[in-house]
């Protein structure tokens, strides 16, 4: 792949959101991911109670992600035209769901602390 360039993708996303907003979003995602790793290491275990709430919140995150995409574009569910459209929609839902679940887990772990799960 002589032509492969990750930088091109970065360049396009910078143009799409603006350089500041794009890197701020990357930073927020990185901080949440690091916080997730931090609480896992700190607690030395997954808390199933926190994980349950995180899982229950997944549909909310997925729906929010789909709503955000529809809000930002002049399109709606009636425009879903073929299999790839459904896959993209499911992808958006899944990304929102997983991201939100991690966020909910991290927030519980940080707010309630390790002891609360005892």
């Amino acid at each position: 792949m002589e032509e492969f360039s990750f930088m091109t993708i970065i360049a396009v996303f910078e143009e799409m959101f603006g350089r500041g907003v794009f890197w701020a979003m990357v930073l927020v995602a990185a901080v949440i991911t690091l916080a997730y790793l931090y609480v896992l290491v700190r607690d030395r275990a997954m808390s199933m109670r926190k994980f349950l709430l995180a899982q229950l919140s997944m549909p909310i995150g997925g729906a929010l992600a789909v709503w955000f995409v529809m809000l930002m574009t002049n399109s709606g569910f009636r425009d879903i035209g073929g299999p790839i459209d459904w896959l993209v929609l499911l992808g958006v839902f899944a990304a929102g769901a997983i991201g939100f679940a991690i966020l909910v887990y991290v927030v519980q772990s940080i707010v309630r602390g390790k002891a609360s799960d005892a």
Partner: protein
Amino acid sequence: MYADWMGERMDSFDKITASRRGFLGLATGGAALALGAGQGAQASVVRTNARILILGAGAGGAAIANRLVERLDGASITVLDGRPQHWYQPGFTLIASGLRKADYAVSTTEQWLPNGVTYINEYAAELDPDANRVITTGGQRIDYDYLIVATGLVLDWDAIEGFDLSMVGPENGISAHYASPEMAELSWHAMDKFTSEGGVGMFGRPATEMKCAGAPVKLCFLAEDIATTKGNRSNCEFIYNAQAQNLFGVPVIHHRVRQIMDERDITYRYQHVLKGIDLGAKTATYTTPDGEVTDRWDFINVIPPQRAPQVIRDSGLSWADRWTDQGWIEVDMQTLRHARYPNVFGIGDIDGVPKGKTAASVKFHIPVVEDHLVSEIAGREGTRIYDGYTSCPLITRIGRAMLVEFDYQDNLTPSFPGVIAPLEELWISWLMKEVALKATYNAMLRGRA
């Protein structure tokens, strides 16, 4: 005709395919993005003191200026463009259908040009390719070693009898969305009124080569969709006037467009070329093989004949025996190098090649011209070729488009074969147009995509 270069073509096919994905692959936000490309980012820098003149700072001129600054050390690069505004022309359709305001397509020419080039805010008044010299409208003389012609084209509004750009707007029901971002916004107000009040809407395209041949069709589809959404479809009639015996130059796409027009009860007529309009009578006259026909309209989208700027036509760079009424420059269709002046290259709309007056084509012209020019300066032979690739997110309604891509041979060249069907009306293709295209275009201008 193509056999002699097929071997070479296959050599560079992988590279070109990869770049194409770079241009289109960014709407999904998915793993396909990993196929993106940044041509030449890792290419070697060549030391030179060559004087390079770029005529035009639009999509082609700005992008090649950024690439050459990266690739050449010590070159004297001058960019000549008299228009201080840069227009994102693929956005005009969105403005003309009320989805964006005029400022969506407006930026400054200067902001896209790299440090290290000389920008002269004037047009070329005289071009003498025998003497390697340009005189600007301000009287400056610029001598060059290499010339890149990226002037774009001119819209010949005067060729439409009885028409004047001051007529555009809702009062008269006239749209001219090719003219400028402001005119595109006025055109939207005309379309908004028509789709609310009903009547006969006329659409069509000129008989010359034109930029984005899909845009006239898109505007017709969008108007029909907007009338339907407003619940006023039954009071509106839509007539699409094609200049040729087809609705689109690529046969397979023609048939698909015809099918959609049939499904949506849009009338289409072949070989109808707009000759003039009568504002008072609200009629339009079309030339047809059977003579002139005159029809009444309540809304009309005027797209005029398109030609090379006069300074180019006077320079001797144009084809002598092809497109003689239009004046596109005589470049090799694969290398984009001038056939008679080897130190002259063409990028974008000005090129006299069978296809490719789109920003997507510019994206594919850039690495070819960059390769041949830099190789020549380095004492090598350039190898990259342009296969006629062009792309058109053919909007069929607000929220859906068909991502049609094709080459010189009328082959469909989908960037995501088996994933994004080119002739299917898809949401993802709309997302590409609405969300990803401008970002990719901007990245291209900066020489980063």
